[in-house]
Every structure is written in structure tokens, then in C-alpha cells.
């Protein structure tokens, strides 16, 4: 079954002479239970694709089907029960005057999740924070702690599809490992579908089977993780990306 189908997506900002095209004729399908990776140059349009999917950028054309729903301008309440996004910039997605407890309980009440109390404790535990962080405000958290609250909030309404924009780039490697293991476990036990944006090929390669490479708003190629490991890229940009990543780990 196809969980996500995007055909001929274009996304732009501004009009007339000020128009900037951020995404150009992008098409891809993601199956239920698949983890699809998105890598590419900074500013190439990765976040914009995810933001258009959740309805944050109105200026797009093409067709999008997610979780059986054909998307128009607005997203229904049920859509956000199914589809959640972790934003690249955790500060922007957390209300500065709401405690962690409030952030998590509001999203659960909105989507009719029972046992809110128990689940908050469980979620905080899952993301490696623990109940001690429950009544903190965003400014009382470190960068990585804020990012983990954002991940907990996305998981809270029990979505089936998660759009993850650099979910672990603010995290140190040990916490990153915990989060990646958690995402892998959830995917296996509940068959979740993810799209994962990351600039770290090690991270993408760890979770994803198929990976799209972006440059200047376009998909330059889609390749399997095995091909990526064997450095079998056809496009010059992918080759360049792989070469610089390999150099940097050794």
C-alpha cells in the first residue's frame, strides 16, 4: 500500500519578479512502513517539501495523497492525527510560555488520546528525558532536550506517518543513537511510515532503504542505501556528497 504519493510537486515563494522556485517537479511514492530519506544541498528545498505536505506553504501545484486523503489547501484535524512533523528548528515549534507537560497534553487532548498522564511519563522516558523534565519551560532546556520534546510531541497523538526534518542534528551521538533506535522500534512494532531529512549520510543510511538526493529544488536521483554504500551514484552532485562524507568519517 502507498502511504504517501507526491506527483509533479512545485513550490514557490513570492510572485512576479520576486518569485523564487524552491521545489521543481518532484515526484515520489512512499509505501506503508517504509522509511524514505531526503538528503541534499542546504537550501535545496527539503524542508519546503515537508512543509508543503503539512499545509504550511500554500503556494504549490501538483498532486499529493497522504494516508488515503487527497490534499487541497486545508488539512483536516484527522490528518494531523495521522501525520505529524518534527521541525528542523525546535525552538520555533515549542511555545515559549508552555511547559513540556502542557505541550504534550494539549496535542493529545486535541486528538482524543486517553491516559494522557501515563503517556506523558512514557513519552518522556522514550526520548531519554525522564519525568523530571515534565514541568520545565523551553528556555530551561538545552538544545538537544528541546529537540527531544519536539519528537515526543510528534509521537504523542500516535501518528502513522512521521515527517522528520533533521530530527537528530541537534543531538549528541549517544542521544541520537537512542532516538534512532526508538524510531526503528516504533517502525517495526507499529509499521509507521517516515520521511526523514538529514544531512548526515550515516544517519540516513542507518534507517532508510531508499534515498532521494536534492539539489536546486530538484531530485537529482533516488537510490537504494546499498547503492549508496557501494558509492554507486550516477549524478555528479551525489558523487561529490558521498566522497566528502566518506572522507570526513575516516
Amino acid at each position, binding site marked *: 500500500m502507498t502511504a504517501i504519493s507526491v506527483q509533479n510537486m512545485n513550490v514557490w515563494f513570492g510572485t512576479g519578479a520576486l518569485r523564487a522556485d524552491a521545489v521543481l517537479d518532484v515526484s515520489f511514492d512512499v509505501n506503508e512502513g517504509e522509511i524514505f530519506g531526503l538528503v541534499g544541498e542546504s537550501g535545496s528545498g527539503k524542508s519546503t517539501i515537508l512543509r508543503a505536505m503539512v499545509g504550511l506553504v500554500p503556494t504549490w501545484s501538483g498532486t499529493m495523497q497522504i494516508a488515503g486523503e487527497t490534499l487541497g489547501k486545508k488539512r483536516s484535524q484527522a490528518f494531523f492525527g495521522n501525520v505529524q512533523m518534527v521541525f528542523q*528548528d525546535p525552538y520555533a515549534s515549542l511555545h515559549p510560555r508552555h511547559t513540556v507537560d502542557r505541550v504534550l497534553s494539549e496535542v493529545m487532548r486535541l486528538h482524543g488520546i486517553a491516559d494522557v498522564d501515563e503517556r506523558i511519563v512514557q513519552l518522556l522516558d522514550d526520548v531519554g528525558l525522564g519525568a523530571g523534565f515534565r514541568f520545565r519551560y523551553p528556555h530551561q532546556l*538545552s538544545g538537544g532536550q528541546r529537540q527531544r520534546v519536539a519528537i515526543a510531541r510528534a509521537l504523542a497523538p500516535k501518528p502513522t506517518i512521521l515527517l522528520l526534518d533533521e530530527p537528530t542534528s*541537534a*543531538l549528541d551521538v549517544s542521544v541520537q543513537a537512542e532516538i*534512532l533506535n526508538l524510531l526503528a522500534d516504533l517502525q517495526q512494532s507499529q509499521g509507521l511510515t517516515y520521511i526523514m531529512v538529514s544531512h548526515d549520510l550515516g544517519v540516513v543510511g542507518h534507517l532508510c532503504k531508499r534515498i532521494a538526493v536534492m539539489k536546486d529544488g530538484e531530485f537529482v536521483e533516488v537510490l537504494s542505501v546499498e547503492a*549508496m554504500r557501494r558509492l554507486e551514484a550516477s549524478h555528479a552532485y551525489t558523487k561529490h556528497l558521498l566522497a566528502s562524507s566518506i572522507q570526513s568519517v575516516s
Partner: protein
Amino acid sequence: MIEPLLNVENLWVRFPSRNADFDAVRGVSFTLGQERLGIVGESGSGKSLTGRALLRLIQSPGIVEADRMTLHGENILHASEARMRQLRGGQISMIMQDPKFSLNPVMSVGQQMSEALRAHKKVSKSQARIQTIKMLDEVAIRDPERVFDLFPHEVSGGMGQRIMIAMMLLPNPKILIADEPTSALDVSVQIQVLDIMDKLVRDRGMGLIFISHDLNLVAKFCDRIIIMYAGRIVETCKASELRQAKHPYTLGLLNSVPNLEHPRDRLDVLKRDPAWRDAPSVSACQ
């Protein structure tokens, strides 16, 4: 002996609360010369607060205490707020971990960069614009003239980081504290940005504190490394000797890095030993 750029002895950052005070930084000591000093450590270990304490940017009710905190021999622990404002941005700059949050949302990025430059250097408006665009170009921003007029919410995550870096480097500080400056950048852009910082250290004798959770990056890029755990320094070494690190925490961090070429089903996670927290902080003075 020449006076180091920065000299910090027994630095504490404490948050008083009704129940029990929380000590986020617990007695760290280090010096910074004209070098690249890396600070690594897990999330919440006190890296950012150490950086912010040096600029005296800890929000109340937080308290900063130290036996000594000097910049070029000048006592900055007790300097007036007016003096600190002079030093911040001009002498000692910090690239914050949340770049977009640190930018003014209602002013174009170019305008705020130019104004920041003009606050510390005597240059005309048009000169500031030229220098700003040149700096944006240096941090590998494409089409810098278009980006000059964008607002912070209109730039991508990686562009935001590079804008912040460019803005902090413009006034040519003596000391730069870079808090996870390249965490949103792919390796090829990362290398370009690091080259710029590197040049400033080599050619202009800047001192750089480079906070990062990326051990491989720090090992390659820095001269010395401080490894923090629970507000203390558990180990310090030459960057080239990180692979020979001895502390089990450092080894644990090294082992949890996913690697494209050597896939594993599950990643190792750290098993934390309560004794790590109690061991006294190691001095990283030179």
C-alpha cells in the same frame, strides 16, 4: 608566560530553586590561547551554559560564580554591564545554537548584519552592505544579494546557521564561541565554513571555542578537546589523540556514531556510571 586570551578557573553555573539548587556547570577550569578548543559532551552536559557564562549571558535566576574569569587579563566576572556590552560582539562573539531564534524576526538578515557591524566598526552604510554581501558569499550562501533582503523565516535551516556565522565574524572578534555552528550543514558546506574559521585563527590569531556533539568533526578540526559530563570536565586531550581517549564515557560516545560504510542493526547506547558524576573536574588549563 604570555597571558592566554581567556583564563577560567572553577566556573559554576547554578539555578536556585525551592527544592534543591541545580548546578548545571560545576567547577570547570580552562584556558584559551590562539587555538581551536573543542568542547564535546552529551546533551545537557553544560556546553552551551559554559559558553554563555563567558559572555555573562545567563538568564536570571541563574548565577555565575568563578575564582577567576579573565579576558586578556581583564576581569570579566565583575565587569560592569556597560563594559560587557562593549566586549560582546566586538571582542568576544558567540554563535548561538538556535540561529533563527537569535535573529530579529522583523528585520531582514542583511540589515541586521550591517547594523551589527556598524555597532562595532566605523563603516558607512554602503560599505557595510558590501562587506555583508561579501561575507554571505564567503559562507557559501548562493545568491547573497537576494538573501540579504530575506527575513529570518524565509531562509533554510542551514542558511540560518551560515548567516549567524557570517554575522558574528564580520566585526572580527578576538574570541569566537561557536555553539554547534555547523550541525545543520552537509559536509561539503561544513568544510567551507570551517576553513573560514580556521583562517581567522591562523592569520589573525583569533581564539576559537568550538562546541559540538560531533566527535569526528572536533577531532579533525580542533587543536585541543574538552569532554564534558554532568557539568564537569571528565577528560581533556589533544584532538589528534581522541582515538586514544581513556574515559569510558568518551569511548561510549565514540561508539555510538552511525557510519554509512559499516551498518549495524542497533546502535550502541551509553551506559552511564554514577561515579562519572562525582569524579572531580579535570583542569584544561595550559
